């Protein structure tokens, strides 16, 4: 299995831990990810709000490069990238006007976007292409006893329900269970993390982060697992402020891929748990018998 | 008193129809006794100018076989029409276009190119093609030219009667002569054969089940066929149900399926469409894939359903060819 890999800016910056953990995990599962040559900004959600035409053109350039590469599947781990690329794909198919605008823009750089490639999320690929059975077979250190709150955020399920339910997604739940973890009942799976409001309107934005963290602790979670660099950042970076404004809610937030690496027994530098600001408690050592059996 | 004048002529045909006239055997004597033959290129030496010299309508009946494929054939058809009281399309080619009309699937250029350049059995390095005219030693002979379209006789001139078949049977020919000479004629435009499909006289009819459901189709060379059983019951396309009878089921008696040379019954406008309809309706499958699989046994529907009737079909010819 080979996918075109669109990292986007976050995975090279604030969300470095996502890339650092996802790449080895995928490799471990025999998935080949070929980073797109000369990719550019996906346009992100902000650009879409300013100028849809230009935003689509920017995103479509990446799709065009993917088409040119001959790889029909584009793997976009960042939620914002995933949404924007998908949205562009939808616009190209549904609005002839947009198709023209984009075609004209791409023509100037000698590219064409037919809109034929599929934009895929890692969860989608793990569940539907690789399958949980294959994942389970790679688990050498089951996350027994680890209580995880699966946090999907908004962008991978809204507005497009591409591979999971919009209000109650379950793909990550099933993945975490396959890793041996306990998934806590957590009705805030797709609630807002505060998004960019944490920076612009902290009272509103941080409050949303605070609710998520508080509810996760209340429901007995040891850790929050996320799929989105912005969610991870919001839930991880503002503890001092939240603590000052409301109460301390010390719970770590990590990428699901980090938990996978952990369960696969990958080396620490591929699990990169040290990148989090709230440290995750070490797992209980595996029972000697179980360890011997491996 | 002089005897009625009769002409035989051939256009684009194989000569088989002429054989039928000969196949009348001793009966031909009876015919010859009652008529004067004024034109019969295959057997006797007359010149066109002799015909041209005849007064209009002075020939009692002309039996013309072959499709109209060349300019010369058309010219003669027009001439003979003018000279004849009755013009009879004799045989499948004159009636329906016949085998020559299968060329209506190709353009004139394709036909010429294949026959004078690409045909594997050909030695024509100069790629010489027939010319309409050329000058040699100060003389300029004109040659007949290939038309773009192969036509039935009635697509060129008015036709009074049709005698079907590839070739027509001696019996039908004899009966037609008798009718002509006795004056007991059906209405103009009639086909001088029974107006009922071939199954009526096919001995295999009784073996066709009433619940046929096709799962596959076979072509005659793809198997050995039960010589007593309906071909359709064996999955072999037999045009009998869509073809006029009158041949005495000659092909099925010889263990070959009917290929449709007698053309459709009078009620049908397009023989191929009707045969297609009948066969397909009785395919067993209900899903597109299953249907396509069953019908894959008919790889060339045009050649199968319009083997003789393409020129006379509703579309006449492949539609995207030049005129």
């Amino acid at each position, binding site marked *: 299995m080979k996918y075109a890999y669109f990292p986007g800016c976050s995975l090279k910056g604030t969300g470095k831990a996502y890339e650092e953990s996802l790449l080895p995990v995928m490799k471990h599962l025999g998935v080949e990810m070929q980073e797109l040559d000369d990719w550019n900004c996906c346009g992100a959600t902000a650009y879409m709000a300013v100028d849809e035409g230009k935003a689509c053109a920017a995103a479509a350039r990446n799709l065009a490069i993917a088409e040119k590469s001959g790889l029909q599947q584009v793997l976009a781990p960042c939620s914002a990238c995933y949404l924007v690329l998908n949205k562009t794909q939808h616009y190209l198919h549904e609005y002839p006007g947009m198709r023209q605008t984009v075609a004209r823009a791409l023509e100037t750089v000698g590219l064409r976007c037919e809109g034929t490639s599929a934009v895929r999320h890692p969860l989608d690929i793990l569940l539907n292409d690789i399958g949980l059975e294959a994942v389970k077979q790679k688990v050498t250190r089951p996350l027994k006893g680890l209580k995880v709150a699966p946090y999907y955020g908004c962008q991978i399920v809204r507005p497009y329900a591409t591979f999971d339910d919009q209000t109650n997604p379950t793909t990550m739940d099933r993945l975490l269970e396959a890793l041996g973890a306990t998934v806590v009942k957590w009705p805030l799976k797709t609630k807002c993390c505060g998004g960019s409001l944490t920076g612009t309107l902290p009272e509103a934005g941080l409050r949303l982060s605070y609710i998520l963290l508080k509810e996760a602790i209340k429901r007995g979670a040891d850790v929050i697992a996320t799929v989105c660099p912005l969610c991870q950042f919001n839930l991880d970076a503002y503890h001092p402020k939240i603590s000052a404004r409301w109460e301390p809610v010390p719970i770590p937030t990590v990428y699901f891929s980090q938990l996978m690496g952990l369960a696969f027994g990958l080396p620490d530098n591929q699990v990169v748990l040290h990148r989090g600001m709230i440290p995750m408690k070490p797992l209980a050592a595996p029972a000697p018998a179980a360890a011997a059996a491996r | 008193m*002089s005897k009625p004048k009769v002409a035989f002529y051939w256009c684009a045909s194989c000569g088989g129809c002429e054989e039928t006239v000969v196949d009348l055997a001793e009966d031909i004597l009876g015919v010859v006794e009652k008529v004067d033959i004024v034109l019969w290129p295959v057997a006797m030496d007359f010149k066109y100018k002799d015909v041209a010299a005849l007064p209009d309508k002075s020939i009692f009946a002309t039996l013309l076989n072959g499709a109209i494929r060349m300019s010369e054939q058309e*010219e003669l058809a027009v001439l003979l029409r003018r000279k004849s009281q009755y013009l009879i399309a004799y045989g499948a080619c004159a009636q329906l276009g016949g085998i020559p009309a299968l060329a209506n699937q190709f353009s004139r250029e394709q036909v010429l190119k294949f026959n004078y350049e690409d045909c594997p059995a050909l030695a024509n390095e100069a790629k010489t093609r027939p010319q309409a005219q050329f000058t040699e030693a100060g003389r300029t002979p004109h040659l007949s030219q290939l038309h773009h379209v192969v036509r039935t006789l009635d697509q060129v001139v008015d036709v009074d009667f049709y005698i079907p078949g590839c070739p027509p049977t001696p019996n039908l020919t004899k009966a037609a002569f008798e009718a002509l000479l006795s004056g007991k004629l*059906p209405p103009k435009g009639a086909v001088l054969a029974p107006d009922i499909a071939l199954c009526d006289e096919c001995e295999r009819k009784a073996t066709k089940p009433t619940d046929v459901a096709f799962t596959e189709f076979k072509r005659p060379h793809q198997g050995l066929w039960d010589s007593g059983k309906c071909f359709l019951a064996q999955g072999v396309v037999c045009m009998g149900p869509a073809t006029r009878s009158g041949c005495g089921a000659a092909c099925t008696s010889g263990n070959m399926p009917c290929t449709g040379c007698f053309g459709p019954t009078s009620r049908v406008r397009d023989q191929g469409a009707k045969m297609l309809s009948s066969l*397909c309706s009785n395919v067993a499958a209900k899903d597109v894939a299953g249907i396509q699989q069953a019908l894959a046994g008919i790889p060339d529907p*045009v050649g199968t359903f319009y083997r003789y009737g393409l020129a006379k079909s509703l*579309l006449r010819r*492949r539609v995207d060819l030049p005129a």
Partner: protein
Amino acid sequence: MTKPWTPRIVAFFCNWCTYTAADLAGVSRLKYASNVRVIRLMCSGRVDPQFILDALARGADGVLIGGCHPGDCHYVEGNYKMLRRFELLKRMLVDFGIEPQRVRLEWISAAEGEKVKTVINEMTQQLQALGPLGMPQKFTAWDQELEHLAQAVQARDAAAGPCPTHAAPSPTPEVVHV
């Protein structure tokens, strides 16, 4: 004033589903291209492939057949029979040089007025892009070679002078048409 060319579609709709759906489209005041002319039959199974070829030969640029959805035929299975004919006819028409988009089979239930609209509009658009099939015009064009020849022969004969008419006319037996 010459009107710009627009395609002509002859439609054969079954009485129970598609014709009723077209009535529903009317009752719902849906708007669609006026290029289609509907002929009502009781069942899509009645659609004789001759009708389709005849329509094309007489100047239709496309033929649309509408029947009940598979399993819903008012006459149990008439629509399957049409589907089977359609599958081979489509292939045969390609051999005749006719684009497959020109003949279309659609399952439209009595409730799908909206589908009548979309299918007709879509087909009109497709045919517009394909351009006219124009069989009657083609027939005329094909037969021009006959006229050219006739003119040439006439000219030649005229040059050669009148036909000698010395031969006696053939005796004609009395004709009784039976």
